[in-house]
């Protein structure tokens, strides 16, 4: 416990320094934040353009899809804030700077996570929240305490699931340095998929995101619970409540994968 508290304090100091450094160039940081928010908003423009042509998508109307979109976007944005700089991890392997991390007396994953905090990515969170507000206003839901609580819970669980998947896949770089874009297909592709009702995708994709890379638990199952909708996949109702448990499980798996991968690391000699 004391160790965790120490890590939390180090994290705050490192990230605080990163944020202060970026805010030194306030105008530039602001422009980047705005750019990120607009770039993220484009995905929702696509959804709006689709609904300008048809009234529903796989039996979900625009407000319902907006809820899916908001849950998927906000949780992905938090994961991106926390560990988005894992994109630079293959570069550390290539240049051999990962060695420096291994000789320091702190957990390797912690050091990578604490290495950066890109203020511009707050733009993604804000954009997701804007769509969430739209969804909540436009939806006709019989709000219960459970349904209200489900939304923040889904966002936290979703952020954990995304982060875990991201970390587990990033370990591929220990073996194939070039392949970070394959990871992008799962992370950015996964966050894109999670914005849409799962029923419209092919069986193999549905199976993949329910049972293998559990991104269906980021937005789809929690949204089914909040909206009280039928599951197009016909899976057990218990899955609607499973997101927090799935989050814990994927985090544990990611931790094991990471430790094993680090054990296999052989330095480039940097």
């Amino acid at each position, binding site marked *: 416990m004391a160790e965790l508290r120490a890590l939390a304090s180090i994290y705050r100091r490192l990230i605080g320094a990163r944020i202060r450094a970026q805010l030194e160039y306030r105008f*530039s940081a602001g*422009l980047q934040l*705005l750019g*990120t928010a607009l770039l993220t908003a484009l995905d929702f*423009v*696509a959804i709006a353009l689709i609904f300008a*042509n*048809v009234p529903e998508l796989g039996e979900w109307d625009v407000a319902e899809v907006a809820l899916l979109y908001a849950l998927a976007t906000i949780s992905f944005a938090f994961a991106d804030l926390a560990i988005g700089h894992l994109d630079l991890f293959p570069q550390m392997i290539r240049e051999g700077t990962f060695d420096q991390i291994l000789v320091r007396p702190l957990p390797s994953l912690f050091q990578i996570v604490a290495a950066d905090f890109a203020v511009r990515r707050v733009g993604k969170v804000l954009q997701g929240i804007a769509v969430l507000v739209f969804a909540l206003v436009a939806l006709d839901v019989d709000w219960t305490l459970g349904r209200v609580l489900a939304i923040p819970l889904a966002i936290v669980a979703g952020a954990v699931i995304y982060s875990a998947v991201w970390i587990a896949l990033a370990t591929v770089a220990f073996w194939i340095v070039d392949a970070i*874009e394959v990871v992008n297909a799962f992370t950015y592709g996964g966050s894109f998929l999670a914005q849409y009702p799962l029923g*419209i995708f092919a069986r193999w994709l549905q199976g993949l995101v329910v049972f293998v890379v559990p991104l269906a638990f980021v937005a789809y199952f929690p949204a089914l619970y909040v909206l009280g909708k039928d599951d197009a996949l016909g899976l057990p109702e218990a899955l609607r409540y499973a997101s927090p448990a799935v989050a814990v499980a994927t985090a544990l798996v990611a931790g094991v994968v990471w430790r094993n991968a680090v054990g296999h690391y052989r330095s480039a000699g940097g």
Partner: protein
Amino acid sequence: MRLDWELARRGYRRYAAYPGATLAGLFTNVVFGFLIAYILLAVYEQTDVVGGYDVRDALAYVWISQGLFSVVAIFGPSWWELARRVQTGDVATDLQRPLDLQRTALAEDVGRAAYQLLWRAVPQFVLALLLFEITIPDEAARWLVFGVSVALAVLVSFGIRFLLNLSSFWLLDYRGPTLLAIGVTNLLSGMIVPLAFFPGSLGTIVRLTPFASMLQAPIDVYVGEPVGGSVGLVLALQLAWVLTLYAAGQLVLSAGTRKLVVQGG
């Protein structure tokens, strides 16, 4: 001309040096292709035609746009490589050479595009033919104009990226504007959603922008839905943008060169 050819070959080889990255990029495009294809199939469950595109046209759109993604560089380092050289001052070396910076950059970019066309667009198109029922034009003439339109799209894309890179002669930090420009490009080029989905006359207006000329135009030509109903008009519009952007690039480059302050000496 000989120099341009050599530079283009260098541009090609620079990307050919990383086959793993090509394969990974191809994989990502295919994943997104599948996702967008299923989303559009769900749209066409409820309607037969959107803005002239039927379901087979829409599927052709998905796979051609994913294939051309890297060819016309919707995203990628070419959006900021030169800007970074301006920021670091390395551009001073480029300007000392007795060569036109824009022309050499163009030659290299054509080599880059050729590589991406061969190794990313073509494999994806073959895959789409095997897995999905997409529109396949049966007249040879349409394939020919499609090819010309793709070539023009690359040149338009170069023009836009070159101008944006030059903005760093005036801006100390190019990243914000670059992000914004990439966002605008994604939407208005038809990368995110076919421009046929824009309602009413908005669909026509967005097709007149240079962004549409870099991606949607060749696809419109391919499926036989050119803006204004005429393939000639589309090619003329693309050519006009190529020339306008190139001329603007020359002007801005010479203005930038005059004002050049090499940061950090």
